[in-house]
């Protein structure tokens, strides 16, 4: 293992110490329990957005905290869900009286920890809604798996819902918006190389020099299939078509209905000719910008051919998997509301425009 670290067990703490020193005008860092929060928190009268997950996906989530995006982020150990005490203390720190929305990526650990945290926060009198992001089209079925994983759409949901909270949407409206973003977004990723979790010290999986894994998650989970390496154009086409031609996806998620946890059936509508989309080409951490733009060039051509109009884009490493080489593509169906919220000012360490 070759990494710019001191001791594997100190990676998360030392990273957070660096973040606190680097962006004091944007975020503060609370230690033990660990969370990153807006420097101006709590924002009175506005819904507070909190997300979190294992570390190793930076800038998501800690680098996406700031005006117009998240109010707090709870980092776990590398690739390990954070714990309910972090999420509870973060909620107490940032809630401004209008409730808290937990944005939760659909991984078994994250879901259970955030459900426990929501129960604990409610016991303290804080209004909480949990919305799951499960947009990974690589997972075909929800019956025999834990369902689609939360990947690229998470970043887009955090930006759009952060703008809505800033605008004064109430908790129910922000939660509804987050659900709407989730069901209209789909992603697909691939890996050229594995990554190495610092504490594990060796690559999570073996991938021969001439092979790639299609449909990979963001923790080095194996994907849909392993195959011989192809060209950038062929890979882009495989990822894009998996998203664009994906049929309606139905699953049951657990949401708090105000009184109890209840099962809710959600359906992702398929893309249709004439849709406006946001195209997000993401690096898994080890793939450089130069390659991302080669992918974007082909993605643009495919979308045109399929009758999808790209109205906004995001290109770069935003939801990563340590030093993994690879990429993911996310397409989110946009409407006027989403475009306006996407364009709203944002000031976080990892994403900034308009201010």
């Amino acid at each position, binding site marked *: 293992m070759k990494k710019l670290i001191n001791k594997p067990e100190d990676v998360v703490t030392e990273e957070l110490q660096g973040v606190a020193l680097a962006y004091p005008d944007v975020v503060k860092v609370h230690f033990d*329990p660990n969370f990153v929060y807006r420097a101006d928190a709590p924002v009175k009268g506005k819904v507070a957005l909190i997300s979190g997950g*294992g570390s190793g996906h930076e800038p998501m989530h800690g680098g996406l905290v700031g005006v117009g995006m998240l109010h707090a982020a709870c980092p*776990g*150990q*590398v*690739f*390990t*869900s*954070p*714990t*309910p*005490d972090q999420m509870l203390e973060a909620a107490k720190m940032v809630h401004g009286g209008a409730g808290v929305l937990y944005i939760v990526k659909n*991984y*078994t*650990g994250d879901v*259970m*920890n955030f*459900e*426990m945290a929501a129960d604990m926060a409610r016991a303290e009198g804080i209004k909480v809604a949990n919305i799951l992001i499960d947009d990974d089209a690589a*997972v075909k079925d929800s019956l*025999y*798996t*834990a369902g689609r*994983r939360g990947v690229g759409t998470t970043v887009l949901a955090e930006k759009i819902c952060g703008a809505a909270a800033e605008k004064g949407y109430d908790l129910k409206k922000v939660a509804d918006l987050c659900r709407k973003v989730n069901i209209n977004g789909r992603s697909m990723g691939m890996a050229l190389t594995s990554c190495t*979790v610092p*504490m*594990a010290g060796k690559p*999570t*999986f073996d991938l021969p020099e001439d092979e790639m894994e299609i449909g990979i*998650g963001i*923790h*080095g*989970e*194996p*994907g849909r299939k392993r195959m011989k390496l192809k060209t950038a154009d062929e890979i882009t086409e495989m990822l894009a078509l998996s998203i664009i031609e994906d049929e309606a996806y139905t699953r049951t998620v657990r949401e708090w209905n105000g009184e109890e946890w209840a099962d809710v059936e959600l359906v992702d509508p398929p893309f249709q000719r004439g849709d406006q989309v946001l195209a997000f080409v993401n690096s898994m951490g080890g793939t450089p910008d130069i390659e991302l733009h080669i992918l974007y060039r082909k993605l643009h051509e495919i979308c045109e051919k399929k009758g999808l109009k790209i109205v906004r884009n995001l290109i770069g490493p935003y939801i990563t998997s340590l030093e993994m080489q690879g990429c993911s593509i996310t397409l989110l169906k946009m409407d006027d509301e989403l475009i306006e919220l996407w364009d709203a000012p944002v000031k976080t360490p990892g994403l900034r425009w308009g201010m």
Partner: protein
Amino acid sequence: MPITTVDVLGCLRKMADVIHENKEFLTDLDAAIGDADHGINMDRGFQTILKKLPSVEDKDAGTILKTAGMTLVTSVGGAGGPLYGTAFMQAGMAVAGKHELEAEDLLAILDAALKGVVMRGRANLDDKTMVDAITPAVAAMREALGNGAGTANALEQAAAAAEKGMKDTIPMLAKKGRASYLGERSIGHQDPGATSSYLLIRTMAEMAQEKE
């Protein structure tokens, strides 16, 4: 002879040793079908329990187990934290206020732990999870006690059933957690959660054995 709180504390310390010894083994099992952190996370949790135990040494078994559960919830993370944390907290509630535990209490502990895991994780039998090790253990212990077995013997049968349940996860197709994304490729690997559950139940059995 009933199990005392001193035995419960000793058992938790022994569990921490066993998890520590098996840290790499559990992590390697997890690397095959999950995200290679189960041993690391469990070890962090049980090492934290070791630090918390001195503060509850004079408390009842229920409080000791609930403290262990809360410690796991706040220090393990991943899926293991809420699952094992809930298991230990529910187990603690099952023996709240007690300073001495009879065989029936130990069964109640295992049964409450299982119910907690099922409530939190919503897994069914044969989904290739912890449930596949704990369910047969509870059934075996209940049957053994019904047949008049003593505490150590009943727990030994529970541990044997958990071991079989753990091995039975090898040919299973995972339907919960990260392993479920592997589909057919999850077949042929032993579930790390079922393995840690077996190790903990085995440690309980050894505690009862030494007591006799």
